[in-house]
């Protein structure tokens, strides 16, 4: 599938600070591509360069094969939510969208339509300055959808939203991708990306850390494992090694088996006639993988340990 956003060796230097460093990745249609990184890792700067708002120090960012500034009808090709407050507080939501619509010959009927999509119809004639952060986000999303674009960029779209709003954004992004659009969404919230994105571009300190799928990302970094509790650790470890698996001894006297499915471990136990008290398939969380990868790339880090830990696959919970 041809990519619609193509970032090539993109670099942005602010004085002595290098915000984005030799970054290259592609965004393809039909999926949600998550743009994951700690705060201050260069996500917003990258998005601003894609949108032609920041000029790259070197490298290129192309949308539909062109620099953003050369698009014929920018809002009809790309929609973006880069900033929750990118509107004038004295202007009504309707007027804000109407002014945007004029720039790209978007009919005014579409303004009503996008206000409906984001659920702001009833406050369309209220001044946007009175809006809550969440309503501001919705207005920004309405602006992004205005030109019915095939490419959508969202910078931290769930910031300031309540749980209902967060789920709404998640469903919106997924349905936009399902319609064949390219959706590129940044977040520092790993759990949100795990639920929303199909692909992941992970950056830390402006540099690419991983460009992969959500599934591969968690599998490769930390990987899946089977946790086994057995009174006879020695025999069990020997049996697993004979079967070609790898074993980690976990401090709580359990054993983590890697490189084998839980089914394979179960069959091995039966074959070898071993006693096992517990057998739990473990899924490394996206968060663990992320922490592991960005450990050296976090600009501002609290003092606490970021040691990776395995969690049970049943407990999705809050990561």
């Amino acid at each position, binding site marked *: 599938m041809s990519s619609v956003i193509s970032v090539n060796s993109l670099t942005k230097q602010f004085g002595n600070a290098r915000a984005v460093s030799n970054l290259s990745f592609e965004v393809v249609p039909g999926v949600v591509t998550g743009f994951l990184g700690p705060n201050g890792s260069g996500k917003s700067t990258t998005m601003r360069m894609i949108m032609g708002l920041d000029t790259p120090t070197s490298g290129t960012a192309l949308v539909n094969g062109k620099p953003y*500034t050369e*698009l014929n009808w920018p809002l009809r090709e790309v929609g973006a939510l880069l900033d929750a407050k990118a509107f*004038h507080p004295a202007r009504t939501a309707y007027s804000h969208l*109407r002014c*945007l619509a*004029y*720039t790209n010959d978007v009919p005014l009927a579409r303004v009503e339509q996008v206000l409906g999509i984001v659920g702001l119809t009833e406050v369309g004639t209220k001044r946007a300055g009175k809006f809550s952060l969440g309503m501001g986000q919705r207005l920004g999303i309405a*602006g992004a959808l205005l030109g019915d674009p095939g490419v959508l960029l969202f910078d931290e779209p769930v910031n300031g939203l309540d749980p209902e709003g967060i789920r709404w954004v998640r469903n919106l992004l997924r*349905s936009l991708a399902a319609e064949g659009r390219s959706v590129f969404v940044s977040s520092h919230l790993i759990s949100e990306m795990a639920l929303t994105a199909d692909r992941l571009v992970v950056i830390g300190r402006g540099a690419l850390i991983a460009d992969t799928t959500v599934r591969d990302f968690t599998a490769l970094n930390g990987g899946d494992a089977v946790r086994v509790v057995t009174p006879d650790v020695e025999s069990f470890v020997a049996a697993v090694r004979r079967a070609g698996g790898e074993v980690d001894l976990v401090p709580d006297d359990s054993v983590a088996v890697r490189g084998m499915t839980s089914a394979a471990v179960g069959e091995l136990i039966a074959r070898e006639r071993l006693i096992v008290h517990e057998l739990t398939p473990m899924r490394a969380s996206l968060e663990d993988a992320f922490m592991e990868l960005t450990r050296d790339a976090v600009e501002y880090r609290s003092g606490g340990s970021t040691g990776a830990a395995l969690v049970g696959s049943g407990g999705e919970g809050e990561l």
Partner: protein
Amino acid sequence: MTTITVLPAPRSSRYGLRQACRAEWAKLFSIRSTWWTLFVTVVGTLVVTALSTASAAHHQPGWYQGFDPTNQSMSGLAIGALAIGVLGALVFTSEYGSGTIRSSMAATPRRLEFLLAKLLVVGAVALAVGEVLTFSCFALGHAILGSSPVPSWSLTDPGVLRSVVGSGVTIGLLGLMGAAIGAAVRRTAGAMGIYVALLFLLPILLAKMPGNLVRFTPLIIIANSIAAVVRHTGFVSPVVGFVLLACYTVALILLGVVVVTRRDP
């Protein structure tokens, strides 16, 4: 939830100045501060003209020796000059201040076109307001001075129409200057400071210096060269005045162009 829609295809091959101007027009008149600024421009000018001209009415005939009633009627324009600069500056600074600049530049990313659209719209509005204002001032002056023994000053008298129309044009130029400063400075307070300094402080400063440089400052040109029908020595001619004001405007616009195209929002 469905987001699928079919937008009618645009008629032209790409967006251009026409779309950008239409959006800028809608932006300008969809915030209340525009109406307030225009209200202050018009009412402030007319009130000052009325008060100042009233004190020049009903004197003895000898008092009106060398009196310039047209110039007298334009005396309130200093208020209009200040307010129209605010309007111009706000066209840019309100966008930078609120963050609107990012959605605007995403919608119309070619920055020169963006800047040009803003200047065209605010320049046209300031010019139109300026002309309405100067003709209103002229009519107001006639109403107040009508019964006083002033020299003849109909629009057909030499220099009168030039003064009235020309003074209106300067309001248009001042709107452009304010906008250009706003584009270069980005902040309302900073832009207003520079604009006020240029118009009101610079003449005071230069008046104390040798060489009569004060005659080249914008407000002195407007008051004594362009709005004057009776010429006085020590001031530039109306033509030179216009050329100078146009040069100042172009210089400030070029500064705005450099900043807007080079510096990221």
